[in-house]
């Protein structure tokens, strides 16, 4: 039999249209997940640069560089794993059709990437210059290139650098919000999927983006510090924890509002949508996404005297919860047939026997999830992220 795209992982129940399969699979869940981490990490780094939250200084550079590492990976699930013609991905630059919610994707992404890259450059300029003068060989050369030929280092240029970083952080925040709100719009504007069609979608995606990004920064910061045997700054962790907790409350409120609205207006599709929410996906939504991913972290984070271990557990839960949210939205949304008379079950390929099974399966997901950390390790060679030896928030940047 000729295999049809989607047949491998779709199990149909009751009446679904013949051409109906789960066309948007795990990579479409992964794409907003990683994009969300990008936006969240950036917002966290900006809290220091822009609002001068001193206790966040130990993580501000790390969050910025990590955001860039994630940014490089974010489009990969979409471009290389999801598209059936990845070799034509650049068509979107040649003939962008701007009525489509994903046509501007490349543009939005590049602009945002440029902002983050320039912010990193200004933040690390003194480091690049120092290294280019002291290092020999290939590394010295790379650092020379990284300086972009600018070797001025005095009070005036330091002041300019600082201003530039502030300015970029300032325009970065709305772009990060736009980037992720935009991702939410891609889903929210699909009028054929009842679960997605909601003007709240962009804001919901944005909030969950921020919490996942902050959680990942807490998580990586704690692990990184343990790895390098450095002191974990309690104040920094607590400050991040507070940011996380308040944003979880916002995210949870919006997500609940969305469901309540669907249920209260109870349009035609609600009869089947409710069977997804309160039936097939009830454990995933209420226990994993909300209970484990939001309520438990709120409690853990709001109990006074937040300890490192508690913050670590809470952020792990948030990361799982947000992943579940992406899964529930992408897969859950498609689980109800457009015929309103049937369901589809998604069975992700695990062990790859064919290339298709690898591309659409668990191992490509794992690969994509590890990649940002690999990038971070590489970047760390050029833009060291954990520079603070001691938790002293008052001295000027120490190298």
């Amino acid at each position, binding site marked *: *039999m*000729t*295999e*049809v*795209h*989607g*047949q491998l992982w779709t199990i149909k129940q*009751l*009446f679904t*249209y*013949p*051409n*109906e*399969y789960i*066309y*948007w699979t795990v990579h479409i869940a992964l794409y907003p997940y990683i994009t969300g981490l990008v936006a969240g990490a950036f917002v966290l780094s900006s809290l220091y640069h822009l609002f001068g939250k001193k206790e966040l200084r130990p993580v501000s550079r790390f969050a910025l560089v990590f955001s860039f590492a994630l940014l490089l990976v974010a489009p990969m699930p979409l471009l290389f794993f*999801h*598209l*059936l*013609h*990845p070799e*034509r*991905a650049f*068509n*979107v630059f*040649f*003939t*962008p*059709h701007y*009525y*489509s*919610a*994903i*046509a501007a*994707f490349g543009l939005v992404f590049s602009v945002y990437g440029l902002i983050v890259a320039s912010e990193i450059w200004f933040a690390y300029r003194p480091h690049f210059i120092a290294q280019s003068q002291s290092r020999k060989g290939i590394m010295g050369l790379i650092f020379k290139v990284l300086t972009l030929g600018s070797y001025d280092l005095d009070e005036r240029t330091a002041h300019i650098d600082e201003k530039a970083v502030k300015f970029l952080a300032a325009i970065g925040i709305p772009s990060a919000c736009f980037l992720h709100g935009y991702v939410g719009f891609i889903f929210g*504007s*699909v*009028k*054929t*999927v009842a679960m997605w069609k909601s003007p709240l979608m962009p804001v919901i995606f944005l909030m969950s983006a921020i919490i996942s990004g902050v959680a990942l920064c807490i998580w990586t910061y704690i692990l990184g510090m343990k790895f390098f045997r450095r002191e974990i700054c309690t104040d920094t962790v607590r400050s991040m924890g507070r940011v996380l907790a308040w944003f979880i409350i916002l995210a949870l409120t919006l997500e609940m509002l969305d469901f309540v609205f669907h249920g209260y207006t109870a349009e*035609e599709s609600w009869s089947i949508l409710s069977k997804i929410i309160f039936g097939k996906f009830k454990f995933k939504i209420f226990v994993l996404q909300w209970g484990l991913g939001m309520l438990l972290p709120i409690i853990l984070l709001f109990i006074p005297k937040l300890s490192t271990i508690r913050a670590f557990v809470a952020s792990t839960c948030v990361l799982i919860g947000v992943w579940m949210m992406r899964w529930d939205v992408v897969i859950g949304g*498609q689980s109800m047939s*457009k*015929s*309103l*008379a049937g369901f589809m079950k998604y069975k992700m390929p695990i062990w790859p026997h064919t290339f298709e099974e690898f591309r659409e399966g668990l191992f490509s997901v794992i690969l994509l999830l590890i990649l940002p950390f690999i990038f971070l390790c590489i970047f760390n060679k050029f833009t060291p992220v954990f520079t603070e030896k001691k938790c002293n928030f008052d001295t000027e940047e120490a190298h």
Partner: protein
Amino acid sequence: MNRRDLLKAGLVAVAGMVIPLNALEVFDDEAKAAVKAAIEMVPKKRRWAFVVDTRKCVGCGMCVKACKMENEVPFDADVSRTWVERYVVLKDGDVLIDSPKEARYGYTKNDPMGREIKEDEIAKGFFVPKLCNQCEKPSCVQVCPVGATYKTEDGVVLVDRTWCIGCGYCIMNCPYQARFFHPVYNTAEKCTFCYHRITKGMKPACVQACAFGVRKIGMLNDPNSEVFQIVMNERVMVLKPETGNEPNVFYIGLDKIVR
């Protein structure tokens, strides 16, 4: 004809077109509006439309078979540009709907959803053939990021196989699930009303294959076409009007349980 002559002829033609329109200025507003509307009707006239008379369909599946052959969608692949759905409403209120193998082999047994049903249990039953609605406002075209899917002048929605990146956004956005990925080309695929045939004066493969006159194609706004006659004079319905897609496939005898 040399270049100068060509230019002259062109100028005369353009002037000829512009002057009558400008001449309208001297008429009163109403006359102007009427003439303008008539002029605007001209492009609208070219609008392919389809009529499906569900009352006549016997579920033989010849249309599906013909379509698959004509349009080279692998016969054994579980997707199709057109398909036929079976609806059975039982006396106890149960509704059974199915479309096994898109009905490419036709309905030969009384086994909706694999259930053996006695004839006296059935309140009503009917078949509904489906195909792309060549929507007036196609949401599939709206969302294609690269413009690989587009609407022709005469209202048929097509996909450019050489340009489609295979993102599936259009497939998600078609309310009728008329789209799928072609198993061979891995690009978005859909019914084209057999555009390669109708533009040469032939009938679509499914229309030709249907022995019961269920399927009809014609130009909307062409008073001589059967489709125009039916849409104007009979009570027709479209699928899922609430989506705002404004389908150009009109159904006779549609039941409220059909989605």
